[in-house]
């Protein structure tokens, strides 16, 4: 998928991945790739600035977690992040239904 096309949806996709369970950057990227069947194989570095911005906006929260001798920054969705994700999912469903209706 074109990186530009994905750009506008990256925030929502990342929040959707984290909504399931808290995760660190690498795991988020892998999960995004897995759930999209490899379609969303974006440059991995682009995810970190987005994670930081979403945290600054209060949509994510993060903490250092030590596991297996490694310190990792783990992100989880905040309450306002959950609300924003629900909004985005609603908007996307309405949009994709409309596009489907036109295409079919």
């Amino acid at each position, binding site marked *: 998928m074109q990186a530009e096309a994905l750009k506008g949806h990256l*925030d929502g996709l990342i929040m959707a991945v984290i909504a399931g369970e808290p995760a*660190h950057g*690498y795991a988020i990227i892998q999960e995004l790739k897995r759930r999209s069947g490899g379609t969303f194989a974006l440059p*991995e570095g682009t995810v970190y*600035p987005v994670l*930081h911005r979403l945290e*600054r906006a209060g949509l994510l929260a993060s903490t250092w977690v030590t596991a297996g001798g*490694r310190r990792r*920054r783990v992100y989880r969705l905040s309450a306002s992040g959950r609300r924003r994700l629900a909004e985005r999912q609603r908007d996307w469903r309405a949009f994709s239904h409309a596009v489907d209706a036109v295409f079919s």
Partner: protein
Amino acid sequence: MSYVDELAGELRRVGIRGRLERRILAEIADHLASDPAAALGPPDELARGFADELGTSRSRRAAFAAFGALTLAGVAYTIAFVAISVANVRIPLLDARSRPIADLAFATAVGAPQLAFVAGVLAALRAFRRRRDASLPAAEARVLVRRTGTALGAGLATMAAVAVVAYEYAPHLSAWLQSTCYACAAIGGAVLLAAAPAAVAATRVHVTASGEPTDVFADLGPLVPLQLRGRPWTFAAAVAAIVCVTITAAGILQSDPFDGAMRGVLDAVAVLAGFAVLGRFLGLRRR
């Protein structure tokens, strides 16, 4: 040199240092430990990605913080002037402790708040208009920071001027009135200073995204009549004319039309001069 070392240098180059720099490096090091062949992209691009988003959110936050501080400082300024009005004091302008200082302070106390108001409102307007943008073009972020800095600087100059005016004309002011002026100046100044670190933090990160800055017509949107859009000097002349007519009308209502007209013309000239000197700096016009 390792990827993390290169990234450290690039982060410092774009102004990301200290705790945030260490956190980014630790996250990227952990990522590379999970997958040494990870496609993170060139270190300079990654650093710019962080800087563009961080600089954008910092410049927006600084604009909102300055606007909030200016609102509170505006209340303090109003209280000082209402107090002078309530005390019914006629300040003999020629009888200051030091005429040049008093004149300068008086001119600043009248002119600087107008500049602070215009710059602060325009900064907040642009920050609000672009509140959903993850990253702004560097030129746009620069305009935001300039407006914020100008607003805070002019606000601080106003507060200092209020205190200096109170000191210069102290023999003609009662003790409570002096205290009120000093307190208002101190509170207003403190509030503005509290907003300054956000503006300084915004200047430290170098946004690099390309793109043209927008102008005052984008900021004001439908408030500007169609005939004036894209014609900045005509717009400035129209604003100056409105200011002139409004102040003259106020003078007529106060039974002092000559004084009103004089002040109206002076303010209109100040509007045009401000537009000529600061128009490009504050992103009001492109040329």
